[in-house]
């Protein structure tokens, strides 16, 4: 099919990241242009799995679609936002960096030679001036458009590690990526049941075998396979709810919003106020205790500390009984519905389902929601048939021994290439001893010192959460002087975005490098922008690891690079070369070939590198059901067993000190008993961002925030096809980010659908387009994270017309006084207070679209 004029190329889709991917799209290229992108069809000679149950046999289709953005991503190649050449900020110079103008001043095109001179000159200057690389904050931990190697965003860490190793210039300051999507499970549930290796979520071994055989009800706790699931896991996530329905399993959706999967799949929606899930679980537990409908034998044999929990539920310790009526006040869910839920949950074999965890795990004190979730799952005997923690789609590492669906264990282990660079982003701890959590990046610049507990590294052991860390390392330290930004996602994907933008304007910061394909997010706050490529513009490997079927693809270069863009790898290689680090950056082909040759496709199936490049892909067979049953047997599972069955059978073996489910965390009790923010037993507690507190008098609404259905985090919001389906057209014709608001709240504020509204609190303001809908509970508004910033002025105040809601999300530091230790450096991007007012479009003073008014000259 391929010839000069027409070729077919498999290209990693934009929701790839962390060197891992989904199935790619089949891109058709004609005369150097991508004319269409088609779903990939798994060839007929690849054996798919079958999950055999008494309710029927379950498999997946051969067609593999991806999120809509994937099919529109070609529009980003030459978009108006594209960085085509190295760009230097007009009023930056080494002697006079004008830091306060970052985000305001324009850019001019410079040559690669000039750009490399500047960047290496600045690195050397840091070394000469401060004696080490510690003043360089390297932000290279993902959340952007990313491939296996070439457009990977981890190379900054590698570069500075090589500078350390080969030039002896010392450590750099590593920004450590906190477990963003899993926050609540990481800071909370880990203390109840461990699972350090899977960020606090129970293993998924063969879980579908059990659920489809035995479950009668599945609770979607904020889970949205139609949005997050499709983006991360492709078609398989869309099939899973259909399996549940075909097996006759009821789906109950619990979430403030009627999300996209719930709107079509749920048999019952229980709307609750944002981030009040813990209170709902208390009400459920109370019903079970009052009616004696929990698994007392399991509690006795598999858990510790239940009596203290029971006592708290009954109010014996604090005088407040956590009845359904009590929970109703907090959650907005009627007491009768809480009791009905509790009774159904006890009577029916019920599993609880998430993809990552939803908005409930990304708010203030989100450890409460996940600890209570673990408690109530324990009360009904998690691991018993049909009673599981269920992910609707799971990357291959989510296991003890076995995959979620029938797969050969060696394929999971050695089927797809692992990129060692991942250690810099998703590791057991920082590589550099000088580091700051991503949640505290702004504070590390703005405050004289920051102290916190826990490295926040994704795979760190629970014990790490009690270790004390600080930045800078000592009082004479220069702190952060240079920022190396490969992420381009901080204000849109993380919290308190306005603070981060201000931090970038701090006079201490001498130099900011952005490495990115587009002028978006915080990239227009850089002094030097290096033009990175998209996946269409270079060859790479595609390691299909997030799907239910594993595969390796060879990605050809689909089109010529736009402008003078280079791959992320190449950009860092060129910089390394100027610093004499040639050997640390072998040619791309060598790197890819070595990675491929370690996979089973080469070692077991005998397809050498050259042949693989011709074939373009290798999709791994799944075992037959009979083979799968044998594999399970080898690992101690019976034919129908799966999920936490092993724990139900053994009653021990968890990562907790006791090996059991701990209602009262023995580790917190031993190491941090006086931490009132996270006591050994999860108790109901109030905080500043809750309704009913003093702050809610001024800001009565609670903002919830999901992953967008049409963006991938901050990516894709500039695509015209996406904007016209995903946005709200204001009366001024501008496409605003949707803000869902309940009809009662809208009426009280004189807001109609399509109105421009300002969502605001103490931290600032963003503009949105109102969507008045029954899909959001009263008292809450829903705005997805990651909209493209477009700064404007309203009543002489800087506002974001783009609707980038995380700009006004809280910092973890707000709970503490200046200089106080941050005991839980959690991410807060949902469930915080704000108010909404209607805005007259005539009062908005627009910007030019880059930063606060910057322009780009390619002249």
């Amino acid at each position, binding site marked *: 099919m391929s010839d000069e004029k027409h070729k077919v190329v498999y290209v990693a889709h934009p929701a790839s990241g962390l060197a891992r991917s989904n199935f790619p799209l089949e891109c058709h290229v004609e005369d150097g*242009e991508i*004319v*269409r*992108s*088609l*779903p990939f069809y798994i060839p007929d000679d690849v054996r798919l799995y079958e999950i055999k149950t008494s309710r029927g046999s379950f498999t997946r*289709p051969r*067609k593999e*679609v991806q999120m*809509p953005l994937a*099919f*529109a991503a*070609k529009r980003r190649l030459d978009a108006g936002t594209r960085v085509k050449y190295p760009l230097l900020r007009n009023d930056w110079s080494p002697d006079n960096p004008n830091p306060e103008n970052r985000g305001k001043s324009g850019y001019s095109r410079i040559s690669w030679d000039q750009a490399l001179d500047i960047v290496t000159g600045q690195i050397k200057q840091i070394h000469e001036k401060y004696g080490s690389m510690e003043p360089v904050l390297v932000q290279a931990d993902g959340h952007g458009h990313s491939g296996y190697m070439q457009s990977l965003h981890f190379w900054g860490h590698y570069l500075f590690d090589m500078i350390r190793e080969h030039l002896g210039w010392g450590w750099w300051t590593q920004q450590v990526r906190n477990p963003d999507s899993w926050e609540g499970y990481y800071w909370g549930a880990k203390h109840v049941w461990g699972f350090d290796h899977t960020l606090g979520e129970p293993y998924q071994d063969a879980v579908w075998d059990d659920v489809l055989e035995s479950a009668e009800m599945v609770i979607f706790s904020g889970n949205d396979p*139609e949005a997050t699931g*499709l983006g991360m896991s492709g*078609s398989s996530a*869309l099939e899973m709810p*259909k399996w549940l329905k075909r097996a006759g399993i009821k789906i109950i959706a619990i979430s403030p919003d*009627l999300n*996209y*999967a719930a*709107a*079509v*799949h749920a*048999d*019952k*929606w*229980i*709307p609750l106020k944002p981030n009040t899930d813990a209170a709902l679980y208390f009400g459920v537990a109370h019903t079970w205790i009052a009616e004696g409908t929990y698994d007392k034998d399991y509690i006795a044999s598999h858990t510790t500390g239940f009596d203290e929990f029971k006592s708290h539920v009954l109010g014996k310790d604090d005088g407040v009984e956590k009845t359904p*009526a009590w929970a109703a006040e907090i959650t907005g869910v*009627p*007491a*009768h*519905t809480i*009791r*009905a*839920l509790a*009774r*159904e949950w006890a009577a029916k074999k019920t599993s609880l389902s998430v993809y990552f965890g939803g908005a409930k795990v990304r708010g203030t004190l989100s450890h409460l929601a996940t600890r209570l979730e673990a408690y109530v799952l324990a009360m009904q005997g998690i691991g018993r048939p049909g009673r599981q923690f269920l992910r609707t789609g799971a990357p291959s590492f989510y296991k003890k021994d076995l995959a979620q669906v029938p797969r050969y264990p060696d394929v999971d282990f050695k089927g797809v290439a692992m990129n060692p660079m991942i250690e810099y982003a998703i590791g057991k701890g920082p590589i550099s001893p000088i580091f700051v959590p991503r949640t505290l990046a702004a504070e590390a610049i703005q405050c004289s010192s920051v102290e916190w507990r826990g490295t926040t590294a994704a795979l760190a052991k629970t014990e790490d959460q009690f270790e004390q860390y600080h930045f800078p390392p000592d009082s004479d330290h220069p702190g952060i002087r240079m920022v190396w930004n490969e992420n381009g996602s901080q204000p849109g994907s993380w919290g308190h975005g306005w603070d981060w933008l201000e931090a970038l304007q701090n006079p201490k910061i001498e130099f900011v490098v952005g490495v990115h394909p587009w002028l978006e997010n915080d990239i227009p706050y850089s002094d030097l922008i290096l033009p990175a490529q998209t996946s269409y513009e270079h060859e790479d490997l595609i390691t299909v690891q997030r799907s239910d079927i594993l595969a390796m693809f060879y990605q050809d270069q689909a089109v010529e690079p736009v402008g003078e863009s280079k791959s992320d790898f190449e950009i860092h290689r060129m910089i390394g070369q100027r610093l004499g680090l040639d050997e640390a950056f072998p040619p791309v082909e060598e790197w890819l070939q070595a990675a491929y040759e370690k996979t089973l496709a080469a070692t077991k199936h005998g397809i050498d590198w050259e042949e693989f490049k011709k074939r373009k892909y290798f999709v791994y067979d799944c075992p037959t059901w009979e083979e799968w049953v044998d594999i399970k047997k080898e690992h101690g599972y019976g034919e129908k067993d799966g999920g936490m069955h092993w724990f139900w059978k053994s009653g021990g073996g968890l990562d907790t000190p006791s090996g059991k489910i701990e209602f009262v965390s023995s580790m917190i009790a031993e190491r941090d008993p006086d931490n009132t923010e996270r006591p050994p037993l999860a108790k109901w507690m109030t905080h500043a961002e809750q309704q009913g507190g003093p702050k809610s008098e001024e800001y009565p609404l609670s903002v919830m925030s999901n992953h967008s*259905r*049409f963006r991938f985090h901050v990516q894709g919001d500039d695509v*015209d*096809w996406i904007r*016209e*389906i995903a946005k709200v057209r204001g009366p001024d014709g501008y496409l605003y980010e949707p803000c869902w608001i*309940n009809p009662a709240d809208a009426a009280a504020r004189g807001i109609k659908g399509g109105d421009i509204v300002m969502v605001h609190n103490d931290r600032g303001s963003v503009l949105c387009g109102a969507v008045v*809908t*029954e*899909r959001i*509970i*009263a008292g809450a508004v829903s705005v997805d994270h990651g909209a493209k910033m477009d700064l404007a002025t309203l009543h002489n105040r800087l506002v974001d017309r783009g609707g980038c809601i995380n700009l006004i999300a809280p910092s973890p530091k707000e709970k503490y006084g200046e200089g106080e230790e941050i005991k839980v450096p959690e991410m807060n991007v949902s469930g915080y207070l704000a108010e909404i007012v209607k805005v007259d479009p005539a009062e908005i003073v627009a910007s030019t679209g880059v930063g606060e008014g910057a322009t780009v000259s390619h002249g």
Partner: protein
Amino acid sequence: MDNKTFLIDVDKCTGCMLCSIACKDEHVGSSYEPWSKPQPDTGQFWMNIRPLERGRIPRVRMSYLPVHCQNCENAPCITVCPEAAIKTRDDGLVWIDPVPCTGCDLCLDACPYGVIFMNDDLGIAQKCTGCAHRVDEGLEPRCVDVCPHEAITFGEVKDTSQLETYLAEAGAEPRVYWNGLPKPWIAGQVIDGDEVIEGVSVTAVDLAGDGSVGVLSDAFGDFWLMGLKQGRKYRVEIRMDGYEDFNADVVTDADQDLGTVVLKAK
């Protein structure tokens, strides 16, 4: 030539918009003559999803209608076109020949489905071609190819007796068939004091005819009387041993929700 057509299953559609985006991917910037000239970058939706938000908190659901050219037998667009530019292929796909089309826009108003668009730059009217260029090669239309839920299929439809057409009352005799077109529901919840009641008999009696639909309330006390007739008056009869009868007259001009019905013990 095969006489294939589209079958749309509303019950399967999740509103993911992949069909709309795939259509743009195929047609924006690409010409498939004689059937079509390029679709403009934005503004046209040859396949579009019409979302229907239904019900009231907490009984809310979405229905999505993927709407494209219904390839009508009695197409008003064909009748109204002064240039005879709109034609029906032998296989039944209706297309606008871009060569004779003058962009007079009469067809836009004539179409009962609102699926014809003006391309101001090219001065022509444009719409879905059923991906005639792909169909001729034995391929599926792009919206069908990309649909992950088999909500949009394309093939021989032999037995249409159980199927519906969309806006049949417009009289265009569409050749696209539908399953699961939304019908009004009457929903609600029954409680006694502060407890929901399961197993309550709820019946909607069609006061204009002799039909009735009945359900039992579920474990949350919720009931959903589905698939009712549009614009009818129903008597909703709620019956449970030990409780007084509850009746309400409801007109199904839209989905109706009775809210929380408190039954009184006898």
